[in-house]
């Protein structure tokens, strides 16, 4: 469900928790698209955000299936220094460290990924070159990417105070 933290402006964020099932991925897309649109992203950027979130959630659902994890997948959106940051956090088995390095190094291209089963992650990196795909310290994987402030309209609303 959408909620906000109460730890001050710097950590205020939108959060959506979805069950680790494929039919909820569309909901994550709608949520992320709506947030991006709200912050003034043009429609091409909104579509890129939806693709990236869909890919991240797809991998998360697979990871939860593989490990029979029933915990929810978390989607977070927050403004960081004017940029719009999205995170998909799962509690699955965690990305293979060699694959993580290969993707970070740009050694896996989308075309190759299609045949190696890692297309989704390389697609995210193609859409958002600074995207981070990291194995969490405890368990699971976090996919994090940022829409730069420059890709949001001048009229973008600042993250307001909740007072």
């Amino acid at each position, binding site marked *: 469900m959408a909620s906000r933290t109460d730890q001050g402006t710097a950590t205020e964020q939108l959060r959506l928790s979805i069950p680790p099932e494929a039919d909820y991925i569309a909901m994550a897309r709608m949520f992320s698209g709506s947030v991006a649109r709200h912050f003034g992203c043009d429609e091409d950027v909104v*579509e890129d955000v939806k693709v990236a979130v869909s890919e991240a959630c*797809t991998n998360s659902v697979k990871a939860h299936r593989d490990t029979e994890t029933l915990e929810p997948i978390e989607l977070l959106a927050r403004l960081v220094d004017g940029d719009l940051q999205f995170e998909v956090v799962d509690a699955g088995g965690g990305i293979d460290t060699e694959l993580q390095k290969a993707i970070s190094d740009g050694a896996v291209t989308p075309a190759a990924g299609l045949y190696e089963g890692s297309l989704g992650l390389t697609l995210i990196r193609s*859409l958002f070159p600074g995207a981070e795909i990291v194995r969490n310290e405890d368990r699971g994987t976090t996919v994090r990417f940022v829409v730069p402030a420059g890709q949001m309209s001048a009229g973008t609303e600042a993250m307001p105070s909740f007072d």
Partner: protein
Amino acid sequence: MTVWWERALGNLARLYLSNEGVAAIDFVVESRQEGPWTVVDVQGEVDMFTAPKLRERLVETVDQGRYKIIVNLQGVSFMDSTGLGTLVGGLKRVKEHEGVLSLVCSSRPVLRVLSITGLNNVFPIHESVEQAVAAG
């Protein structure tokens, strides 16, 4: 006072209630014959949840001995890598029989993922079913 996250949730709710939202949730795959071509009309969003229905239809079509397939994506508003993988799987199947799998697509989001992955160079892509049929 309505804060930004309430408005964002309102937008999300409207998406669910709008025609756009309904269309995004519904997923339909239907087949028809156009001469020697089997046209597979797809509507909705193709992702991990819906792609198996498309895969099933493509496998079924090839199993019926139909190796000239046009996948009409004009009604598709979203496709991710699972959908792309399904199309590549269909292409591999028809190629085993020296067949053809063409796409009909003019949706910007779908064309974009095809382009980023280089698949726009792998599939013949047309703007209409008529064009695809005429191209043979």
